[in-house]
């Protein structure tokens, strides 16, 4: 009897002597950030030039670090190809939804009171959504592993997705009711000046300058996004349904499919980090302690607008949604 040595799976040499052949997802994601912790500096220029200092300070120097980030996996295991395939299908769904409601003349049937709520609550959302897109890109460019970077970059794209569908529907509502709705000023005016929007703007502008990569991640994904997404994807969904706007309700449900994916990778990353270094709980709790209340203050600022709808949703219910969402995510992440 002869025995044949089992052929070792052929993979990238940098992935080591693996017993299990890495998946296609791993083969096109693992160890792409060759520059992380590279000596003497991440970038092959003067080690002291500004961008080297930036990365050494805000990435390598972040308190949110573990010995090895390469073991983290996106629960959705998305490659680019999988991401565009997934979202191609989901966008076909939204295309169909838009078709259906456009053909039914849905926006034309909005009562005046709901048009007012749409104008005050939905139209300006493009601005904060754009900030979420910017902030996700920052997390992506600073993350210490390509497994993390890709999650953050896909998340940024999802923010654009949500924003553009709202922009589209804003034009539809504007065509049906009032040209002034589909102007820059109709969104930027309240964003810059209305009291209700200022706590959110303050939170988001200050979040943009939280440059430590760990803090940028924690502020965005553990504090601001769960609160904001709960307010829009769930709070606005409920409000729309009460006001018989099934299009907005279904669109918000669709947006929350993306947000659920964002929450899943966030929780997985935190759990991964805590498994490697339990002491990081304190670091993350510190950031949650400072950014969680700011995110809730932002929601508190906008929540009264939910009460102005023809069929209102109580402000405290909206805030409770945001608070619960933060707590649930923290729980799923092994914090709190």
């Amino acid at each position, binding site marked *: 009897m002869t025995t044949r040595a089992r052929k070792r799976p052929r993979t990238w040499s940098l992935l080591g002597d693996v017993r299990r052949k890495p998946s296609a997802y791993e083969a096109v994601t693992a160890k792409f950030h060759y520059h992380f912790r590279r000596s003497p500096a991440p970038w092959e220029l003067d080690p002291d030039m500004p961008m080297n200092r930036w990365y050494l300070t805000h990435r390598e120097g972040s308190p949110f670090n573990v010995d090895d980030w390469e073991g983290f996996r996106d629960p959705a295991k998305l490659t680019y190809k999988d991401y565009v395939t997934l979202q191609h299908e989901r966008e076909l769904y939204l295309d169909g939804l838009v078709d259906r409601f456009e053909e039914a003349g849905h926006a034309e049937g909005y009562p005046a009171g709901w048009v007012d709520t749409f104008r005050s609550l939905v139209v300006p959302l493009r601005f904060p959504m754009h900030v979420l897109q910017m902030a996700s890109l920052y997390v992506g460019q600073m993350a210490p592993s390509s497994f993390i970077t890709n999650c953050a970059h896909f998340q940024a794209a999802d923010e654009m997705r949500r924003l553009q569908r709202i*922009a589209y529907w804003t034009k539809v509502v504007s065509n049906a009711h009032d040209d002034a709705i589909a102007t820059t000023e109709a969104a930027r005016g309240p964003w810059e000046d209305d009291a209700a929007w200022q706590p959110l703007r303050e939170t988001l502008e*200050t979040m943009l300058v939280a440059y430590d990569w760990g803090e940028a991640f924690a502020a965005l994904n553990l504090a601001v996004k769960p609160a904001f997404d709960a307010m829009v994807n769930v709070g606005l969904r409920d409000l729309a349904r009460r006001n018989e706007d099934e299009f907005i309700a279904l669109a918000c449900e669709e947006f929350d499919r993306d947000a659920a994916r964002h929450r899943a990778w966030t929780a997985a990353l935190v759990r991964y980090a805590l498994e490697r270094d339990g002491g990081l709980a304190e670091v993350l709790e510190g950031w949650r302690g400072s950014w969680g209340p700011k995110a809730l203050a932002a929601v508190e600022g906008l929540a009264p607008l939910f009460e102005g709808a023809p069929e209102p949703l109580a402000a405290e219910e909206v805030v409770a949604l945001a608070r619960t969402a933060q707590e649930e995510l923290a729980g799923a992440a092994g914090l709190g």
Partner: protein
Amino acid sequence: MPKLRRSEWYDLARDLNWNLSYVTEEEAFPEEMSNHYGITPNERWWGWDEPYKVSYREYVHNQHGKDAAVYSVNSVVARSRMFEELDPGWKSAIIAHYGAIALPEYIAGIGESRMGRFGRAAAWRNMALFGTLDETRHGQIQTYFPYTLLDKEPRMDWAHKALHTNEWGAIAARHLFDDMFTANDAVSTAIQLTFTFETGFTNLQFLGMAADAMEVGDLDFGALISSIQTDESRHAQQGEPTVKILVENGRADLAQKLVDHMFWRSWHIFALLTGLSMDYYTPLEHRSHSFKEFMEEWIIKQFLDQFRDFGLEPSWYWDSHFVPELDWYHHALHLGVWFWRPTVWWNPDAGVSPAEREWLEEKYPGWNDTFGVYWDTIAENIRNGAEEKTLPETFPIVCNMCQIPVVTPAGYRAGKLDSPLPHLLVHEGRQYVFCSEPCKWIFEQNPARFAGHTSVVDRFLGGEIQPPTIPGALAWMGLSPEEMGQDATNYAWAHEGREAPGAAAS
């Protein structure tokens, strides 16, 4: 299909600029991440207008189709014997390509992402988000394809590992790409990555090489890189509106300097990568154009048009250094790379059989007298069984800017330079060596950006590479004996047209 055309609603999704109140512009757009070059406040950038527009839904619909097409070619080819049957020189060209390009494309996503966060207008940030996604695609697709070839060609490992190593070509690639995008601010990245590099040079590599790939019968590589180029040509358009803002605000001088800097650097890396592939590695019968012809058609004409359209001038070195180098620089690099072949991860194809020499002489009149003479001696050594005389015992000098070995002696011997000597500069007590006047000029424009960097030779002389021998240096570069480059055709070219050894006696 939604009823409204994109143009009816799209401005609502891109006119998202606002005035910051709770932080300052300097805090939210710090200079190291986004150099305003004196054009402040940000409102002066808000008119940024991309010439090509795409929505998210269009993007995912299109890209899904493109990816499905390219991956299906790959899966068909993977089941065939197509790769095995490719010419060895061509295989070298694609192995070199994957190592130098795959991971850099992925990290170009960092440069795009930086513009997506720190670009000074929302429309620009949106375009850069698509650029970020595109580069993720290019990094993944260009590692997936070689990954599927690992069983057939172990050197494909370099598609993933090259940038992790200190192989000299990998250092040159990192130095260039970090200067261009990963360690560059958003505004300069738009000019240097998208306007200078992607608009011009990636066309050459991706469309030029795609044309050659189809000729050679490499459907896999051809489909891959032509699909990539369709993304490049879209996101490359971030450069033009950024140049326009600089020019409109009286900073044409700055746009000019950024272009001059990166055009020269791009030229040098492409001479190394594409020059060798097109004129020496691609099988003769499948060469559509010479490298110089590609450069003239794709680069020179395009850049001269661009310069004119934007009120810029051809770079100061255009006629004095760049155009003359088209005739000799990559030939000199080819000699060097072939001679120092153990230091590269691919098998250099000498590409100088009698028929190939005839082609080189036709495309580069005088080639036989200038470069052919070196190959005469090398061929003679090979035929005499003295292979060791064709292998290196020392290291060349390396340029402190482009990190590519200095080949000025060959340029001088070819009658193209006044002196065989490199260009020297003493800066704060340290002597720097440059291959050319423009490389020295780039350093002098911003010494703090480059001064503390050490080249392979600096590290060798500084005792970082132990033992300080050729084998010690090869190990330091990450090259195992099996991976070190060898002549791609086992010297067949040196015997071609001559009787085989021993044939005369029988």
